[in-house]
């Protein structure tokens, strides 16, 4: 069984199409999305459609939640708020209804899936250090948890005596008595200084978890953003991956 997990597409159609093409070439049995399909990017609807068609489920991210709970948009940064308002104008009431059906948490096969930290998922905490990871580990029971939200691919492991360590490896061979919190990175707006789209493959036969990077047509995404008068910082961050 080969499972592909991705997150944080953020309306970047070129990145999503490149990732789906890559997945197509790798004999993947199932795809799941951890949320934030929309926000920032110019193509929220085509991205939602592709996710609906290809993913077994997609979770609610903070951007989807913000559309449903208007008051939270005020807490967003300027660029996020401007793009959120733009996104809102694109979506029909039917799409808003669909967003309201998205699950917050999925637990199956000894795996947990959640958009941000499993600790108070609706506070959308960023797991960027071992302290936050430890809180995260305290909030799920399975051996493995996949999470997004930070846009940074990283592996946190918890030993049987509850020592939490953050590392990165392109391929991880998980150990029997450890637990893992896998931050899968971002498809549409990577922030780890690598502009390529990022996703994860969990191979239960090989017993490996691999991070995959995919090149996509960044210039095309940028020209769409410019044409839509998006904030300049949104355009430039894509080519540097920040």
């Amino acid at each position, binding site marked *: 069984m080969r499972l592909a997990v991705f997150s944080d597409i953020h309306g970047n159609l070129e990145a999503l199409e490149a990732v789906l093409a890559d997945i197509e070439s790798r004999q993947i049995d199932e795809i799941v999305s951890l949320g934030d399909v929309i926000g920032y990017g110019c193509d929220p609807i085509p991205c939602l459609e592709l996710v609906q068609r290809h993913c077994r489920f997609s979770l609610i991210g903070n951007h989807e939640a913000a559309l449903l709970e208007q008051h939270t948009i005020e807490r967003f940064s300027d660029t996020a708020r401007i793009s959120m308002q733009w996104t809102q104008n694109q979506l029909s009431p039917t799409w808003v209804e669909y967003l309201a059906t998205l699950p917050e948490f999925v637990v199956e096969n000894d795996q947990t899936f959640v958009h941000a930290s499993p600790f108070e998922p609706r506070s959308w905490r960023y797991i960027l250090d071992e302290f936050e990871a430890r809180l995260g580990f305290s909030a799920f029971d399975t051996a493995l948890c996949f999470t997004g939200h930070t846009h940074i691919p990283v592996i946190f492991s918890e030993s049987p005596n509850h020592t939490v360590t953050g590392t990165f490896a392109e391929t991880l061979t998980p150990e*029997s008595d450890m637990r893992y919190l896998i931050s899968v990175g971002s498809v549409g707006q990577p922030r780890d200084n690598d502009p390529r789209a990022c996703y994860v493959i969990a191979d*239960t036969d090989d*017993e490996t978890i691999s991070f995959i990077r995919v090149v996509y047509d960044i210039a095309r995404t940028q020209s769409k953003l410019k044409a839509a008068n998006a904030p300049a910082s949104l355009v430039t961050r894509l080519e540097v991956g920040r």
Partner: protein
Amino acid sequence: MAEIIVKFEDKVIERIVTEKKRLSIGRTHDNDIVLENRGVSRKHALLEFNDNAAVIIDNESLNGTFVNNRKISEEVLRPEDVITIGKYALVYHPEAEEGNTGGVSFEGTMVLNTKKQKELLEKDKLERQIVAKFGGSVLIGEENAEFSEYVLDRDVTTIGKAKFVHVRVKGFFVAAIQAKIVRENGQFELVSLGRSGKTKVNGETVDRRVLRNDDLIVVGKTAFRFIEGKS
């Protein structure tokens, strides 16, 4: 109609479909199944078919007759049992499929090699000692196992990565209780309970499988060999 597949070093050389009640097996050409190798006695063994059962009888052969790598003198066969005589393996199917009955088509030159025979006898002797020592069926720990022998002395033996199971295995994607071995009517059945593809017998993924002597069980990354203690 019973079917016997004759293999020489894993290569199928003959398929026998028969309605006869009795087949003789041996080196000389007056046998029904001719195994041309000096490790095979002239009148090595007999296969007898009753209404519901097939029985293999060793004719006090020099090098012995084995069923699922267990030396026998007389043994009732179960479907897919493997009879080893010299370097030949005979697989028993109670019901033959429709199709050609095949002809004798021996290939290549056969070289007498008693090394395998010696190994088989040695292994059989060891297994008998283990069974005698523990008084029943046993799992022999192979790759990544936490024990060298585990006696299957309960009706249900659980296998998985949880701390509370009887037999612990390695592998991250293995379930807490990935499988169980159930004893029923003198047989042991392996039943997969956890993630699919993680419970295998002789390299094949199984949901449930009645275990035979010398079956190789792999659960996650840990391997065991099943040694059947005759009841």
